Structure formats: C-alpha cells, structure tokens
C-alpha cells in the first residue's frame, strides 16, 4: 500500500473519519443506552473519540481499493460468527460487566464481513432464499447497461451507465442496513449521492416523487418466471428523501465493483429505511407528481408502507421491530430510530404520524 496513492481522508485511521452521532431526539426516540464507564473511553480504544456513534462514515474513494487495505482473508472469514458467538457467551458468563461492555463497544459498528454481505440477502429476482442471489446471479451481465431517466424532468433519455457515472466522485460510505425481517449489517458501500444525478437531469417543478424500477428480464432473472412478486420490482421516494445527502447511488462494495447479487451495476441505498426500499439493478428512474407504487406495499399493504422508515416503536403486524440481529453477533441489539440517522433525517418527517405512515 503506497501512501501517496491515498487521498488525505482515506489515509486517516478509522477513528478520525467523520462520524455522525445518533442522539435520541424527543418523542421520536426510544433508544435507551446504558451509560458507559470512563474506562471504556480509554485512549487505546480504537473508536475511543466517538465510540458510541459511528452511524455514517464518509470518505472519498481511495485510489487503492479497500480490498488491498483490508486483507481479504479477514473479511472472507466465514468462521467469524462461531468466534463471535463463543466470545459473546464468555462475556456473558464473565463476572466483569465492564469487559463485556468494552467488547461490545469496540465491535459496535464493525463492517459486516464481505462473505456475509455477498452471501446473505434478499433479491427475489434471483430466488427467494437468502443464499439464492449469490448462487444464481453469477452469470448476470451488467454491461452494456442503460438507465432511462423519465417523467417530470428536463433531460429525459436513455443514458448509458458510463454516462450516468461520468463526472461523479465515488465515495466510500459505511452505512447501517436494516432489513424489515429483523436482521442488520454494516456495509461499506461506494457510490455517490443520488442528488448529484437528480440535479444533473433537472426535474421539473411538478416532480414530487421519484420511482425506481429494477430490470425485468426473466431470461436473466430466473425467479421472474414465477409469480412470487409482481414484476418488475418498483420502489419510490419522496423528492426530499431522494435529494437527501445520505441517499446513495451505489456502484461498489468493500472498494470493489458491486457484486451481481447485491444489485449490480447500479442500486440505491437509503440507510434510514428498511432494505426493501432500496431497489437493485436499476433501469429506470422516473420523476412523478403522484406517489408511485412500491412492490411490497402492493403485495401486502397492511404490512409494508410507502415510507418504511426504520422505527423500533412501530412493529410489523406479525413481528416486533424493537430489536435486530446484527449479522455476526450473538445477541439481538436494540433497533435505533431511523436506523440511527435521526439527527440527519428526522426533520423530513416532522409533524407526520409515523404510526400511520409506516
């Protein structure tokens, strides 16, 4: 690793990167966090300066891929769970709660392993099992790829992917990802804010929503031959949500090109919403005056809403959303309001009944 190849920020150790801190925000918050002892804050601690936060981590793309910075063997370690589980058990058995706490803090927001991120996700176009996408998406061709910009926009058209990416600075962003099913990950995406693209294509004043459509091609996406969901998969955001600086157009993962099973070549990620809001393999971005349909809401309107903001106080009709299992961890952890991004996004929903607009 040649230091000259790294941008200034990327060369910083993890703890000095910009970190947003989640703070319980009035009525919206339910997070109760035990006070942590001073010992936990000791200087040798890797995340000591701001150990409790680590909600977002943004840095400019290093010219050396992260895959060279983090030894691949480290994040390909499939046995990490076993180790984590046994350590968790040890910690619980240990009389010293402080030690357990210190450990929890240290691992608090450690990125999930590359192996887990790429072998455990929902991508129904390639099968309904969580290992299916990794098994079935391998041969999926992502070039050539066109993205249609349509609707209430000054510069509609069929853009080539390279054209979409032209002039964009790819950043690495470590985001929490919370699935509506109750599991979560920490994912080092790379990409650029959706707003950069939106401002480039100039939506008209009538545009109040953005609709995202995933590729429909049953020849390449085997599960689309069946009827488990209505195809193509569509999702949508309100314009202010789409323009929010946290909303990311994703092109990579762990400093590498985005694997097919994670939505290559282009997907979005909206970190304060449940995962199903973030469409994959996007072929159309349409600006609309009316609220677009979103697939899971069409399938089960009483279970999945349009907003789908992560909210520990509003349960799924069939299961609780108050806790989640972070992949690789033994015990469930409390789910945070807006997935821990309340400071950044709560104002978007001021005055809204989040119980009704779930």
């Amino acid at each position, binding site marked *: 690793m040649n230091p000259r190849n790294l941008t200034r920020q990327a060369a910083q150790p993890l703890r000095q990167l910009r970190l947003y801190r989640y703070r319980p925000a009035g009525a919206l918050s339910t997070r109760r966090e035990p006070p942590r002892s001073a010992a936990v804050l000791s200087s040798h601690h890797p995340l000591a300066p701001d150990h409790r936060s680590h909600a977002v981590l943004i840095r400019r793309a290093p010219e050396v891929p992260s895959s060279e910075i983090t030894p691949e063997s480290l994040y390909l370690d*499939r046995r990490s769970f076993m180790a984590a589980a046994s350590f968790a058990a040890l910690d619980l058995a240990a009389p010293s709660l402080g030690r357990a706490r210190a450990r929890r803090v240290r691992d608090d927001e450690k990125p999930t392993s590359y192996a887990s991120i790429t072998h455990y996700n929902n991508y129904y176009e390639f099968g309904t099992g969580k290992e299916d996408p990794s098994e079935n998406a391998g041969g999926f061709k992502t070039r050539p790829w066109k993205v249609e910009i349509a609707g209430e926009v000054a510069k509609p058209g069929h853009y080539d992917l390279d054209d979409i990416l032209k002039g964009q600075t790819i950043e690495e962003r470590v985001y929490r990802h919370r699935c509506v099913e109750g599991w979560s990950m920490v994912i080092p995406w790379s990409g650029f804010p959706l707003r950069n693209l939106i401002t480039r294509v100039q939506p008209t004043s009538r545009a109040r929503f953005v609709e995202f459509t995933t590729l429909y091609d049953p020849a390449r996406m085997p599960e689309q031959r069946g009827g488990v969901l209505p195809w193509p998969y569509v999702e949508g955001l309100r314009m202010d949500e789409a323009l929010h600086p946290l909303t990311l157009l994703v092109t990579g993962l762990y400093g590498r090109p985005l694997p097919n099973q994670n939505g290559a070549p282009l997907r979005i990620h909206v970190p304060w919403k449940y995962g199903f809001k973030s469409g994959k393999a996007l072929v159309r971005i349409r600006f609309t005056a009316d609220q677009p349909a979103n697939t899971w809401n069409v399938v089960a309107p009483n279970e999945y809403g349009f907003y789908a903001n992560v909210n520990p106080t509003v349960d799924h009709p069939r*299961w609780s959303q108050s806790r989640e299992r972070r992949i690789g961890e033994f015990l*469930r952890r409390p789910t945070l309001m807006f997935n821990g991004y309340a400071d950044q996004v709560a104002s978007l929903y001021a005055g809204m009944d989040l119980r009704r607009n779930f």
Partner: protein
Amino acid sequence: MSGRTGQRAVRLTVYLACLLPLVRLAINGLGGRLGPEPIRAVELFTGTWGLTFLVITLAVTPVRRVTGWNWLAGYRRPLGLFAFAYVTLHFLTWFGVDQFFAIRYIGQDILKRPYITVGFASFLLMIPLAITSRKAMVRRLGKRWATLHSLVYVAALGGIVHFVWSAKADLSTPTVYALILVLLLLFRFVPRRSARPRTAGPRDLPTPVP
C-alpha cells in the same frame, strides 16, 4: 421380516435414520456452514424437521391400512417422539439461544405475535401427547387415549399455520405440508373397508387412532 434380530436391526436403522438430520445439523454447525444467520438456520431446520416427522407419524396409519403392513404400527410412537424432540429443539433454540432467555420479550412475543402464539400452543399441546405415549398409558386411558391423541392433528395444523404466518412471501414449502396434512386428514374419513384392498387378518384389531 423374520426373527427377532432382523426386527431389531430394522428398528435400529429407523432410529438412526431419524437422527440423521440432527447429525447433519451438528456437522454443519461445527463446520461453520450454517450461513451468516446460524441461529435462524437452526430454527428453520429443527422446525421443518419437527413438522416433517409429525407428518410422517400421521402417515403411518393410512399407509398401514392401504398396504396392510401392520408392523408399521410399532413405529408410530417412536416417530411421534422424534417429532416432539425436533419441535422441542426448535423451541429451545428460540427460547434459549435466539431470545437468550429474555423472558420479557419472549412473553410479549407469545402474547402479541399470532405466529408465535400458535407455534407455542402447538408445542404445549404435544407435551401431554408425548407423556401419554407409553403403552401403559394407552391401556390406562382406554378410549380417552384416542380422543386425546387426535389432538396431534391440531398440533400439526398449528405447526403449519405457524410456518405460513412466519413466511414473508414464499409460501411454497408450507403449502406442501398443508396439502399433505389435508390428504392425511381426508383419509381418516374414508370408510375402513374400502380403504383396505387387501384382506386384513383378524389380528388387525382396532387400534387407538391415530
């Protein structure tokens, strides 16, 4: 099947076969091959096998009646107990590993989440059936034993409802179980004589159902 040793060998083979899923689970678990969410994988695995053994147990009597293989009757109780064992493992994984004995959450879930309510109730229902499965109890309870043990259909139905309600969209697997259960239930309403193409011996005494 002649001779005691032969019968014993068959019996032992069946028991070992019933343990195979558990052995596979253990090997995969120790090898770290249960995927990124291993607790969930264990829950799904033990739950599915519990339901499978329940269905197999319920199939014993219909198969015996159709084929006339009355020796199958002797496997009904062990198969049912294996079903109970897998369901118990399923419950304990949820209770002690997944929820990690967090009674507050467990209680809330049982009361508030219909799929857990139904699953838990079905598990509770199987306990008296397992306890009264011994021959001595069959004799002691007489006719009431049959009535009591017809509850196994309720438990199986509850298990399938639990499975369906916990699924997000893909209902193919629970549907297969539901269809099999309906077929087995329907068979119970088929008059005995027409369901027995081969002549049954006088030894085919009415046994407690199921």
